[in-house]
């Protein structure tokens, strides 16, 4: 057990802080949430700055174009960028946190060379085509078909909850390359493909969330051709490849958000003090409790990241499910508490935290519902038997 930073890490933090202080004032104004081309340009512009300053792909392996930083340096990066109010990863989310790490771990040298540098440079945006209308929590039951035709797969089916689909260049796509049968369980026969979003036959229709914005989309695939060479991993081995991706999503992808939640708590305390509600001991204790909880979640994040550094290939461990369960619940509690700080003002969408409160409702659903996470914890960590 050790919580001290080395001189090198402190130096890394100081240089990063100085750089952020210099570049953040130079950034253009943030685009409105519904301006998708504007958001793409803004997010890619920020990624380009990171790339030019040597901060892109910090924790990626050096042979994948990354900087090979230690887990602790990665944590410092996420902590400092969040604290300074730097742009969120945004449209680069899938490229940097799902597809990129998967290609780095499972792709060939050619595939890495083709797809990873544009992600790091801020040239290309990726989206995720995993879920289907009939395959949500039971992702392995997906039915989008890929039929081999010469050097191509011909793909037909539909995908849903595809974030950034409207502005993406590429989609990490899960397809069924072998039909489910007596000898083929559903989690076999799936393949992981990189699909160009401008390929003929791809139709994207935005989906409006309960927050009122078009954060994600439905995607219809009608005989879309994808070269066999754009498959990552072996044919029919896509489920295992996907599990690598999902463990990244559940492991360390939320580091910046935990820091942001801690900052929000501080703002809530100030607001409560200003409007007098701080004098209500019930609310005050609720805020104090959340402060303790998010402090522990920050430590758990640090622990998970150092565990990931220990395990081969830097793949975050199953502890990510424990973290996600605790975090998604705490995040919803945070914004419910924010509403208590605001009182009736929480009914106005113009108030700070109110749109975030609406967004937070997805946290116990996205990337594996809390119920599925509890099954994972019970079966894979605690060893309880699978139900019949």
């Amino acid at each position, binding site marked *: 057990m050790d919580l001290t930073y080395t001189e090198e890490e402190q130096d890394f933090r100081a240089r990063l802080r100085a750089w952020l202080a210099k570049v953040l004032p130079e950034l253009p104004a943030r685009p409105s949430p519904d301006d998708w081309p504007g958001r793409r340009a803004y997010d890619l512009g920020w990624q380009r700055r990171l790339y030019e300053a040597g901060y892109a792909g910090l924790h990626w392996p050096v042979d994948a174009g990354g900087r090979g930083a230690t887990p602790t340096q990665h*944590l410092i990066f996420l902590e400092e960028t969040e604290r300074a109010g730097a742009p969120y990863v945004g449209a680069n989310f899938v490229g940097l946190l799902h597809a990129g790490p998967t290609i780095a771990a499972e792709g060939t040298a050619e595939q890495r060379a083709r797809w990873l540098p544009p992600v790091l440079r801020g040239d290309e945006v990726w989206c995720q085509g995993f879920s289907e209308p009939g395959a949500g929590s039971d992702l392995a039951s997906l039915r989008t078909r890929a039929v081999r035709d010469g050097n191509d797969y011909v793909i037909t089916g539909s995908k849903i909850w595809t974030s950034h689909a409207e502005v993406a260049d590429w989609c990490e796509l899960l397809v069924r390359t072998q039909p489910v049968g007596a000898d083929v369980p559903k989690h076999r026969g799936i393949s992981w493909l990189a699909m160009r979003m401008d390929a003929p036959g791809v139709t994207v229709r935005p989906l409006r969330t309960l927050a009122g914005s078009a954060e994600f989309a439905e995607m219809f695939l009608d005989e879309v051709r994808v070269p066999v060479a754009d498959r990552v991993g072996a044919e029919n081995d896509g489920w295992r490849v996907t599990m690598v991706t999902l463990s990244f999503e559940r492991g360390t992808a939320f580091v910046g958000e935990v820091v942001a939640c801690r900052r929000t708590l501080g703002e809530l305390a100030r607001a409560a003090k200003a409007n007098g509600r701080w004098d209500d*001991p019930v609310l005050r204790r609720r805020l104090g409790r959340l402060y*303790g909880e998010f402090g522990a979640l920050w430590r758990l994040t640090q622990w998970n990241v150092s565990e990931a550094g220990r395990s081969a290939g830097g793949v975050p461990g199953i502890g990510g499910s424990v973290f996600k369960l605790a975090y998604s619940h705490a995040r919803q509690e945070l914004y419910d508490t924010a509403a208590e700080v605001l009182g009736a003002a929480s009914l106005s969408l113009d108030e700070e935290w109110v749109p975030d409160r609406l967004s937070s409702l997805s946290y116990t659903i996205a990337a594996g519902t809390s119920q599925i996470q509890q099954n994972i914890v019970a079966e894979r960590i605690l060893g*309880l038997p699978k139900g019949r």
Partner: protein
Amino acid sequence: MRAVDFQPTEDQQHLRAGVRGLLAGRYGREALRASVDASAEAGAGVDRALWRELGEAGFFALRLPEAEGGVGLGLPEAVLVFEEAGRALVPGPLVATHLAAGVVPGAAAGTAVVTAFDLDGPLVAHLGDADAVLGAAAVPAGEPVRSVDPLTPLHRVAAVGDVSAYRDAGALLTAALQLGSALRTVELAVRYAGEREQFGQPIGAFQAVKHLCARMLVRAEVARTAVYAAAVTGDPGEVAAAKLLADEAAVLGARDCLQVHGGMGFTWEADVHLHLKRAWVRAEQWRTAAQAEELLAGELLGSAGSAGSAG
């Protein structure tokens, strides 16, 4: 070398394994049940021989400097050792005697039993066995009250004592006891859910039971993080968070464990109630949930200008 790391070192893991082995041999389930049975007849008492053995093993002198006859280790080692004591439900004023090492003669060696004014209000635990009371010049007189925990006798006293100097360490070590108990109740629940069959399958195959167990583990693991981190930083806010989260993990863990055990969980024979009752006692010791939350709220407001601490 990783700077931000909670994984116990090899030495720390050896220390923990040693204490687990000692307690398994010296205070296993039979000894636990024997002390419950004895308490029903003669009232609960501290096992002085066990106390001396714990002393010889360095349990109380762990953090005392080697120059003063101690082991010279720190809070990170102490929380691992207390976690084991919590898991085994070792009765007696472990925390107070540990804190008294180097202050009260005999505490470090385990030849003295030291309790403390660690409860809010007029109650003191283990007064009848105490050679000294932290925060008081002499052992005060007290009237016995019927204790909810068969292994934690309580007395009502008129005197009050000041233990503020010990409060943070006391809260953290108590949190470590709670953590051990919480982790143990997860094990007990998972074992029972895997063995007990209804409707033709182990009850642990039902999602309703699985989810109870999963939530127990999540609370315990978040508490573990908080306890280990607080042991490394010693930060009062982190200690308060550790106590708050470990209290909850232990109390709710025992409650859920009881529920998983069904009717058996409501019996005297199952150990579940012993974990629950002790967790209730510890939740009242050193720093209650209300006190921890108020302390954290104060820190939050204080830090609101600087947007959270580094590291």
